[in-house]
């Protein structure tokens, strides 16, 4: 490729990305968080531009073309990553976003992650729910210097992040969907238990490999790539290494998902599974990054029976905890979908089952807002308020300290009311609403309650500081 043409293309791309980020940054944003993200991206872009210009000069002599070529490709990768990160923040000011939820989510996230957090919300074009920690993502990309500079005014250096909460555009108004935040925060909380989780992973993978040794052997043989100039033994070794890497990554991801599920179950019980059902359409289909929904549901059920027996036995949740799919594709015939990694899913299932007991022990170290003797009374009271169209926070004791536990109990109560067939049917009949309207009203009441509790918490903190 003509290098001068390649250089010009890359410089044009940098200019164009810079203009687009600067244009969106100039819009009037209601909150400062997106600006911090844009400032970081513009600073990274400016740095990459000056370094690329330096490379063009430095590699201009004869015989240095390879160096320039590879630097150009690496810079292009950086531009792709900047564009991806920009995609996290360029739709954060949609009028359809329920901004009222931001402060409440920041409050609970800071509490569970033990890190100062602010939240920005974006509508995701994909049908998905995610939370991305900008600090962690930008650190992985080696952009931490620019991040620290851009956020100096917003929070303490080093332990401050902006969480970008993404949820499906179609569900912009569904407040109850935010029970899924418990699962996403579960991913971020993993860093607090790295050593224990590593040990669990090692043992679980060892046990699963031992149990499925024949299957794995077949997988290796099936994937040997015979090529000219490569000896049979070397091709086998190559295939074996590829299997080890794929299985290792699958174990990292699947155990990460299961642990996040257990954290979510700790915080909101089966409510996150109810929210999960709104999003995930293919309950039974595993992938290299996610275990099948049926397996996750079963593991959560076992955990809840062990830790929160009364919650697990509550008839309201039985549908959520026992939902099955027509057939479990884990054990279906291989040729059906042509997925060559199918054997690894069976091993992954064993890894998750092997790890469950010890993962549960780690999750149990996180206090559960549902582990309170009067949970039933609290939930009943909240449901009474919902039934009478009053925010469910109205009945909380004003003199008691307001903690993030109330956030999760509200989410729990909101879903509990929604899934209580008898009560929900009566609610609809009394107000002449259909399912959609009634759910929307429950969401609104929960949102007002969350806002009210966060304000009460701020007020209590202010008074404590004053005293």
């Amino acid at each position, binding site marked *: 490729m003509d290098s001068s043409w390649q250089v010009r293309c890359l410089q044009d791309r940098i200019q164009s990305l810079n203009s687009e980020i600067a244009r969106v940054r100039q819009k009037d944003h209601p909150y400062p968080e997106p600006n911090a993200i844009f400032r970081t991206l513009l600073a990274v872009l400016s740095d990459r531009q000056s370094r690329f210009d330096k490379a063009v000069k*430095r590699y201009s002599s004869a015989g240095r073309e390879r160096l320039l070529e590879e630097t150009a490709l*690496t810079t292009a990768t950086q531009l792709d990553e900047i564009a991806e990160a920009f995609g996290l923040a360029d739709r954060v000011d949609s009028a359809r976003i329920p901004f009222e939820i931001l402060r409440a989510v920041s409050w609970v996230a800071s509490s569970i992650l033990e890190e100062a957090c602010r939240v920005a919300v974006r509508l995701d074009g994909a049908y998905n729910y995610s939370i991305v920690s900008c600090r962690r993502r930008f650190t992985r990309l080696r952009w931490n210097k620019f991040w620290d500079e851009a956020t100096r005014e917003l929070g303490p250096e080093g332990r401050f992040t902006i969480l970008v909460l993404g949820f499906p555009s179609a569900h912009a108004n569904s407040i109850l969907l935010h029970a899924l935040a418990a699962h996403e925060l579960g991913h971020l909380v993993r860093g607090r238990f790295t050593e224990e989780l590593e040990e669990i*992973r090692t043992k679980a993978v060892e046990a699963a490999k031992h149990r499925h040794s024949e299957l794995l052997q077949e997988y290796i043989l099936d994937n040997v790539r015979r090529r000219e100039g490569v000896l049979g033994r070397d091709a086998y070794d190559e295939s074996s290494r590829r299997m080890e890497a794929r299985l290792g990554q699958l174990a990292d991801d699947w155990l990460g998902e299961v642990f996040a599920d257990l954290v979510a179950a700790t915080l909101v019980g089966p409510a996150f599974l109810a929210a999960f059902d709104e999003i995930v359409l293919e309950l039974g289909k595993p992938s290299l990054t996610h275990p099948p929904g049926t397996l996750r549901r079963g593991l959560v059920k076992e955990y809840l029976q062990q830790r929160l027996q009364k919650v697990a036995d509550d008839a309201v949740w039985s549908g959520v905890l026992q939902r099955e799919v027509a057939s479990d594709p884990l054990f279906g015939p291989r040729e059906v979908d042509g997925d060559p990694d199918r054997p690894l899913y069976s091993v992954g299932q064993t890894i998750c089952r092997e790890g469950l007991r010890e993962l549960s022990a780690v999750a149990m170290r996180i206090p559960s807002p549902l582990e309170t003797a009067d949970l039933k009374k609290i939930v009943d009271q909240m449901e009474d308020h919902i039934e009478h169209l009053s925010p469910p926070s109205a009945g909380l004791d004003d003199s008691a300290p307001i903690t993030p536990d109330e956030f999760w109990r509200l989410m729990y109560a909101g879903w509990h009311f929604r899934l209580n067939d008898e009560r929900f049917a009566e609610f609809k009949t009394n107000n002449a609403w259909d399912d959609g309207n009634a759910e929307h009203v429950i969401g609104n009441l929960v949102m007002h309650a969350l806002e009210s509790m966060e304000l009460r918490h701020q007020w209590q903190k202010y008074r404590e500081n004053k005293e």
Partner: protein
Amino acid sequence: MPITSARSSDDPYAGFAWTTSLAVMGLESLRQGLSVDIDTEETAAILETAQELELLSEASQLPAGAQAQATGPEVRRSFYTLVAIAQDRPTPAAPPELDRVGSELRQIHGKLVSQRAAEIELSSVERAQKLCLELLENLNTRRRKASL
């Protein structure tokens, strides 16, 4: 990670590739006798690349058939990197070479931070740059394939 498997995460090798490219640039400045042009980030990248090479060496020596259960996320990540970059091109070097260049990069870094750049041997700069460039080519080839 998002609740379903749609892509919204970053390329796991993008940061490593960028650091390696900065290290290559710093080494080029040394090769051309322009050590004054090396900034703090290029100096830091030389050290970080040394650490990554040592991790790659450690990962390539994990016992065969037991790599998936290796303890230590960093070594495991390096093992995944080795497998990913060896898909379409031969791995840049064997463990002794990775260790040797890693150690040379550490020495280069040490001399740069203690303002003794004149003592750095050109042969070790060229050797290190050659290996880093090959590594970068492997990382970029993987990226090009992935984006097709």
